[in-house]
């Protein structure tokens, strides 16, 4: 029997990684375990958002709204109806998916910046609405222990082995792995290809028989489903949900983190989630120390927002495929290709003037009455509102 070497290597790597993540909560203190748990929670949001934005090309600045909806669904069902936590997680996902459907249908009419504005409004309006109808939602105080919200602990037969933090870690990790696998199967199948086709060439996709409207709405619903599940996990881990737990900055952070991690990449989503957790804590502390070491500067001026903004801009300018894309290129780097790119450098320098010539000649070709290649982008060609 012939052994498929790359597949075997991949299996070994995956098995080692799994063993590592199972060992981590026993090797790390409770704070570090909590951080890992939060990474898994945000990874679920990030994968969902990446399905919508990375794979389907629809921007959303409002995913905090779906996370909030999922979190409140889970919190209220657990506190007021005494539902078991895992049932509320599913309920949260389903309810958020319905909300996603309802948002996705009007979103069909919007694209690019307009969709960004509309979803931003959604994220900003949600906390205000939650606060206003406080009889139902608990208002600014939120839903917490005093309302009867109890964080799930390990079942009896495991209570000697695991404490609550470790149990939560495994609950969230398992959910996250299941959601990752689901995304992986979805994206490499028919639906995923339809998502990408609609993103890259809507008209061509329609001509190939893809129902563009249904595809876009499906992407929204699936993405919101992920956000709702993550919201429910968030409540299990935090033990409390308030209207400002997931604010507008958090919604923006979701989007920027998948850009930093890598758009249209599951690995990128997970890396982005790690950024969401480590940026405000460890990375900021590191930069505070670094800047504080420069004489005349105070480390206290360094804030997570500034670092995150700078990171997003730098990633956008230098590595548009995100950290994940950069890592993959690094792994695939072969000495031969490096040599080749060095050899072809002079040609690259020449290409500037070549591009200018090409632009001029295509302008010439696009004069009225002449047939030729389409003109380079000019304002009339672009969508103007």
């Amino acid at each position: 029997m012939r052994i498929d070497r790359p597949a075997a290597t991949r299996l070994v790597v995956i098995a080692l990684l799994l063993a590592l993540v199972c060992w981590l909560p026993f090797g790390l203190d409770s704070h570090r375990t909590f951080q890992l748990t939060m990474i898994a929670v945000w990874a679920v949001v990030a994968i969902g958002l990446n399905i919508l934005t990375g794979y389907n090309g629809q921007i959303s600045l409002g995913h905090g709204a779906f996370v909030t909806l999922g979190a409140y669904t889970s919190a209220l069902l657990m506190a007021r109806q005494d539902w078991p936590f895992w049932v509320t997680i599913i309920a949260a996902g389903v309810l958020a998916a319905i909300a996603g459907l309802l948002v996705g249908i009007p979103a069909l009419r919007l694209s690019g910046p307009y969709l960004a504005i509309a979803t931003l409004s959604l994220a900003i309006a949600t906390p205000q609405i939650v606060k206003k109808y406080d009889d139902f939602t608990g208002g600014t105080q939120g839903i917490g222990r005093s309302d009867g919200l109890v964080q799930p602990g390990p079942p009896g037969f495991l209570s000697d082995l695991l404490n609550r933090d470790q149990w939560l870690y495994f609950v969230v990790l398992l959910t996250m792995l299941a959601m990752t696998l689901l995304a992986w199967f979805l994206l490499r199948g028919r639906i995923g290809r339809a998502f990408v086709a609609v993103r890259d060439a809507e008209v061509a996709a329609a001509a190939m028989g893809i129902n563009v409207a249904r595809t876009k709405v499906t992407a929204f619903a699936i993405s919101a489903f992920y956000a709702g599940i993550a919201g429910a996990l968030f409540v299990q881990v935090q033990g409390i949900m308030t209207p400002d737990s997931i604010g507008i900055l958090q919604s923006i952070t979701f989007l920027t983190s998948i850009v930093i991690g890598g758009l249209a990449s599951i690995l990128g989503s997970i890396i982005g989630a790690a950024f969401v957790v480590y940026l405000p804590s460890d990375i900021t502390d590191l930069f505070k120390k670094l800047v504080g070491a420069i004489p005349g500067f105070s480390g206290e001026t360094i804030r997570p927002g500034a670092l995150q903004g700078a990171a997003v801009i730098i990633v956008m300018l230098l590595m548009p495929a995100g950290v994940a894309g950069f890592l993959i290129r690094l792994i695939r780097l072969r000495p031969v290709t490096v040599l080749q790119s060095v050899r072809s450098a002079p040609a690259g320098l020449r290409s500037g003037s070549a591009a200018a010539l090409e632009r001029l000649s295509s302008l010439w070709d696009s004069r009225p009455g002449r047939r030729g290649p389409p003109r380079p982008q000019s304002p009339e060609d672009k969508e103007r509102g």
Partner: protein
Amino acid sequence: MGSVFLAAPPWENPSLFADQVAAGLATGGIYALVALAIVMIYRSTDVLNFAQGEMAMFVTFAMWSLVLAGIDTWQVLIIGVLLAAALGGFIERVVIRPVENAPPLSVVVVTLGLFLFLNGMATGIWAKGELPKSFPSPLGSTQEAFKAVDLGIATIPRHYLLVLIVGLAVMVLIYLLFNHTKLGLALRATAHNPLASQLMGINVGRMLTLGWALASVVGALAGMLVAPIVSLDPSFMLAVLLYAFAAAVLGGLNSSLGAIIGGFTIGVVENLFGTYTPQSWLGPEMKLPLTLLLLVLVLLIRPTGLLGQRAVRRV
């Protein structure tokens, strides 16, 4: 009726209604300025600038530190305009220029990055101790600046009147610049067709930088004028930015006149929402969600806004 509604209805108390409309027009002037800045940038570089509000916030905080240093408020206003121009031009050159031809998603993300960066820097540098900080009106102390003036039809605080006058003056100046100077013609040509403008000998790069600088000035003026009303903290421009987006979308994202009309409309509507909605299930704290609902409705029913041009897309 009195228990259901926050205020007496207009037919019972017309002077309250007039006052509310006047106050709405003044805040509307602020929204109109920020909306105008957004539209100026959108027209010239096709960028929807999510960082517009934070650019204004950053400049306003910098000017607040000058006020603390004891510099006269009118002088501070002028220094603020210069700083805003430098900031806008710098951002266009360094951050926006490299993504000029990138897909809209990348550009939106870059302006969001700017948003986070400026917000984080302002928080780190200035937002120490008690928040919000108070920003003085150029008209003097708070009591003096917010003394009501009787205009015959309505009474309005003096600072609101200043906001309205400065806002209208800026709009007229921008109109004159764009429509009656050679520079304005070059700016419009660049926005309309960069390649043809370049071939006609216009320095397109410089025009784009200038456009960002101008928009930044207009936004920062709005920031420094609204700061005495809402007082200063790093997120004070967020609500203003949203209302300005609503205004720009209402008027049409590529129409300057539309942005101004939209700004005044949103200002008045917002104020009336806050005054007249039933307290029991809506009320003033719901005016932002309601205005955003209005924005989404406009987007759905007439995506080009009131005065915007319909987009024709080539496939």
